[in-house]
């Protein structure tokens, strides 16, 4: 007996298995980052002094990174849309772009980190630097996870297009949902850490 609803949605719930699964996973991710943001608030409220983000952090670089990530979300949607229009070549192009943009983000983040370390700013410097490195580091790990999944879907995983195109399209959609979430976390991180 095969497991049902791996491809087509179940009529009464309206979703296929993986889609429900990823939404549940994202709910747990909301709780993870929610807890960290709450910790940020509690630590900041309790602190005697708290630096403004722009005193220590590089806003132009972060702005570029914001644009890069939002663009990568757009290309992610385009890659899924290409599959929905049965165009695997366009899919490869857009998926490749998504991965490349993610790597650009990581490289820029790497430069930011390196500049901090050069100035002797480590997580142990202050509670602000500690929460900055923890939040952006954890977010960075999520980006790395997304790059791994997307690379799989671009490379070996794309063989499924030949055998089960509907399921492969679903996989890309699910990976996209995750990717938009990671993007969304950054959209919260950027003002909280850099601007406020």
């Amino acid at each position, binding site marked *: *007996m*095969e*497991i*049902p*609803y791996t491809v087509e949605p*179940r009529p009464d*719930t309206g*979703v*296929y*298995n*993986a889609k*429900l*699964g990823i939404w*549940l*996973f994202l*709910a*747990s*991710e909301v*709780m*993870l*980052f*929610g*807890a*960290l943001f709450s*910790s940020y608030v*509690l*630590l900041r409220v*309790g*602190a*005697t002094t708290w630096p403004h983000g722009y005193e220590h952090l590089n806003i132009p670089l972060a702005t570029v990174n914001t644009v890069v990530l939002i663009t990568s979300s757009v290309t992610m949607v385009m890659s899924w849309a290409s599959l929905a229009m049965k165009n695997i070549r366009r899919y490869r192009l857009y998926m490749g772009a998504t991965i490349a943009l993610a790597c650009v983000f990581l490289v820029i983040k790497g430069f930011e980190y390196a500049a901090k370390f050069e100035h002797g700013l*480590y*997580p*142990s*410097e*202050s*509670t602000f630097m*500690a*929460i900055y*490195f*923890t939040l952006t580091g*954890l977010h960075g790990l999520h980006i790395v996870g997304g790059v791994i999944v997307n690379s799989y879907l671009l490379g070996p995983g794309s063989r499924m297009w030949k055998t089960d195109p509907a399921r492969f399209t679903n996989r890309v959609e699910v990976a996209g949902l995750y990717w938009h979430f990671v993007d969304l976390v950054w959209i919260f991180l950027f003002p909280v850490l850099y601007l406020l």
Partner: protein
Amino acid sequence: MSEAAPGAHGAVHTDHHAPQGFWRTYVFSQDHKTIGIQYAITALLFLLFGFTLMMIMRWQLAYPGQAIPFIGKLFGDSRAPEGIMLPEFYNQLGAMHGTIMVFLGVVPLAVGAFGNYVMPLQIGAPDMAFPKLNMMSYWIYFVGGVTMLSSFLLPGGAASSGWTSYAPLSVIATVGQTVWLFGMICLITSSLLGSVNFITTIFQLRAKGLSFMRLPFFVWAQLVTSFLLLLAFPPLEAAGVLQLMDRLAGTSFFMPSGLVVSGQPLANTGGGNPLLWQHLFWFLAHPEVYVLILPAMGIVAEIIANNTRKPLWGYRSMVYATIFLGFMSFVVWAHHMFLTGMGTVISSFFQATTMIISIPSIIILTALFLSLWGGSIRFTTPMLFALAFLPMFGIGGLTGLPLGLAPADIHLHDTYYVIGHFHYVVAPGTLFALFAGLYHWFPKVTGRTMNDTLGRIHFWLSFAFINGVFMPMFIQGLAGVSRRLYDGGAMYAHAQGVLHLNVFMSVCAWCLGLAQIPFIINFFWSMRKGKKVSDNYWDATTLDWAATTSPPMAHGNFSTVPEVYRGPYEYSVPGNGRDFLPQNTPAEVH
């Protein structure tokens, strides 16, 4: 549903496997039943190990400063020179007992084992929605468990800051704490994967006709439990990451300014908040209490309906109470922190929510009690354990009420009263329910039944001794004896009057250990030599007993796609030849 000849598939595992190798079949299996068995065996071993730690601690509590007999020399000079336990080693045992029992024993057995094995069968699913993910959650749990255990071998030993790992104590503790955090992150990840899988399975893979109000109560309990795991565990993961940063990167998330340890000011920058850890920890750990108890209630409900031969009393109110319980469990966490100086306003809020959350628990317990009324009860071994669960959980729950009120909690906080309270919930409560479940589903898993006489010996001895262990704790706690005391209170004047109870409790604990021997013998003996029984040994109505054979095949749980026509507990329906109507029987027989 075709009825196979009883015992046609008598071996412990089935003999009709797809052509897969040994590793794929037994070790890296993706079949929910095999994974359930893996969870069960691993969790039972962890329970035994965690209990052993406590039996060693009980020696120190009963006879402080005396050499541990027989095994004392085995621990080495760093833990117990001349067989006399060092305080540091006592703290390690305490911290690891709590961690192992909760995170490696009870939850994996209640959710990982019973949930994995029974839930897909009860909803008529071919397997879990994500079999690979299911395999991964088991193996990540296994790695986390082994990591935890190995920390005993580190220089400085295992984590020793209690199962709650309160900062700043845990931040300055030995390297065992770092390993504890790594282990916890594994366990959390495993739970997250598992809960995503469980919820998706219950929503997506229910058999045709199995609407939500026709789900067996056990499935409802697993569903709410999974939501709790899904949403409550990530904050602890966040807290774990922050504590790892504090320990490894020198940050001060949980470290206040100006901390002095052993006369030396600490080098960290300070500015952190030790209360933050407690908030994040209890935000998980209070829902965790319901993770411990809800599956147990689910098991007990199944067994009571089956053995009273009548429908559960108030099935719908039990379901709504469970859902409400799930919601409320997220807003009661700070009743563990009344003594931290949060302020009376916050305390009042959490007092009120705590009193409110007792209502759904009482609804469920009352419904289970009323289900007994007018039933023709079969006193089978699982039913004995299920019946014992009711008053034991009742004692555990009711003794919690004074702890939920800040004025009473000021006196009782961190005393043995608290230990007695939550052990009544989890040990004679949840663990008895889990034993009930083991006896109940053993025939489905192995095709053989467990020995009734040994089961009854196991039950009555356990029942007597477990009360002997925990009941005196209330007395000691009310007298003001603090928990986590290395000498069991011998040093304190106010404890002298109740000190004699320590020996009694310890002897009961060791006898409780001995009382598990009949169970262990029974378990292994029945696996090979137990009486072969038919598929539906208990004449039950739910779909798990309609699965092809006992044990069900490794692939494909049902010979035909099951369809459901009625609610889960149609027992003693008038005008029917038998006293039970399975959910998948098409029409009533008149």
